[in-house]
């Protein structure tokens, strides 16, 4: 008689057994495996004793207030709020404005040079804008990885979104290069190649192959790491927030 492995017991415990009836029959007949299952359940069950700090009925409202405040008060983003609104209207055009602003080219030459915006402020704005762009790109990649390549409507939507992101990405990459942020520019360059492929790959087979390649190269993972690093630099570059209540 072949006994159940620990992995099979785990699957059974969580209701995902590959052969539920066979597993149940074996457990009914085998005291050893039943004992193993009981031990597994008891050990993992210990974790259920860990409490979660309670949150009241108004918690969701409080969270929304905080999110709303952050949307309105994101320090360096204030300057980008106008561009962000335009982004909603037309992503690439707004990104062009933001990138031009970052590069100090927002005003006509000679009237308000880039020097009016200190270098550290420009870096903060760039960090914030790129971080926001990476958030959107992460979501786009996640959705692409889990989409069904045979569903045309879904693929069309993803291609359009990738195209929008490519335009914005290119502008941020160029701005990052001009600002001497070679690390950020390098990441954006890699991201641009992936986004371009998503935007221009239409056959289901090719999209599936691309999904596999993105996974095997760990592109999403690398993006997360860079995004985390940007978040850390963002935090380090602004004054500490008020004490948490």
């Amino acid at each position, binding site marked *: 008689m072949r006994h159940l492995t620990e992995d099979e017991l785990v699957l059974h415990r969580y209701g995902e057994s590959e052969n539920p009836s066979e597993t149940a029959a074996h457990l009914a007949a085998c005291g050893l495996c039943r004992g193993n299952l009981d031990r597994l359940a008891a050990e993992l069950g210990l974790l259920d004793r860990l409490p979660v700090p309670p949150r009241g009925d108004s918690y969701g409202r409080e*969270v929304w207030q905080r*999110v709303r405040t952050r949307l309105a008060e994101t320090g360096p983003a204030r300057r980008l709020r106008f561009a962000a609104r335009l982004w909603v209207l037309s992503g690439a055009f707004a990104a062009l404005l933001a990138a031009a602003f970052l590069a100090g080219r927002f005003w006509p030459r000679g009237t308000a040079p880039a020097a009016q915006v200190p270098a550290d402020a420009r870096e903060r704005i760039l960090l914030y804008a790129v971080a926001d762009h990476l958030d959107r790109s992460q979501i786009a990649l996640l959705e692409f990885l889990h989409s069904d390549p045979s569903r045309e409507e879904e693929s069309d939507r993803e291609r359009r979104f990738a195209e929008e992101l490519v335009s914005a990405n290119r502008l941020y990459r160029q701005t990052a290069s001009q600002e001497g942020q070679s690390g950020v520019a390098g990441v954006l360059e890699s991201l641009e190649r992936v986004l371009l492929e998503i935007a221009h790959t239409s056959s289901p087979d090719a999209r599936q192959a691309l999904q596999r390649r993105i996974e095997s190269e760990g592109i999403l993972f690398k993006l997360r790491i860079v*995004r985390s690093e940007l978040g850390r630099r963002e935090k380090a570059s602004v004054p500490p927030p008020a004490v948490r209540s």
Partner: protein
Amino acid sequence: MGGGATDSTEERRAGFPELVEQHGRMVFRVAYRITGNEADAEDVVQEAFLKAYKAFDRFDSRASFSTWIFRIAANCAIDLLRRRRTHPERPADLEDPEFPVADPGAVSPETALASSEIGRTLEQALAELSPQERTAFVLRHFEGLPTEEIARALGVRANAAKQTVFRAVRKLRLRLAPLRESLP
């Protein structure tokens, strides 16, 4: 028309506060289980809803918002745990001598447990998992998500998600088996 699409996005966003109200506590619970730290969990909740708001035009209204926000929150939590490991800027609650109860006058049996050595061992067992393992385990064990959903949340294939849960269980059992034997 572009304007129409924007109006539609704005109209949809008008319903966003209600979604935050409905799902806030659930997202906090998941975030706390993954981070093991109340303040970190609050950061994750805020970050997740902020990202969700920004990307709301990408949310397919026919899909489940809870699944979508789960996915975003899990990723925020993973990012935060990785950041913590690389750049520890806030001591974990485990290292706090008052862990985890601030008000010693209001001690329920659960909080008493958490304050005890057993609570510490349980927390430590979870803390020793990698961010990916901890997230996969929390979504599986505490939230009851099926493997497919966990895979979506982690951005990996279903088999990889399954293996991550197996690995987490093996590591946890190594820590928890002696504890179970010592309990009455």
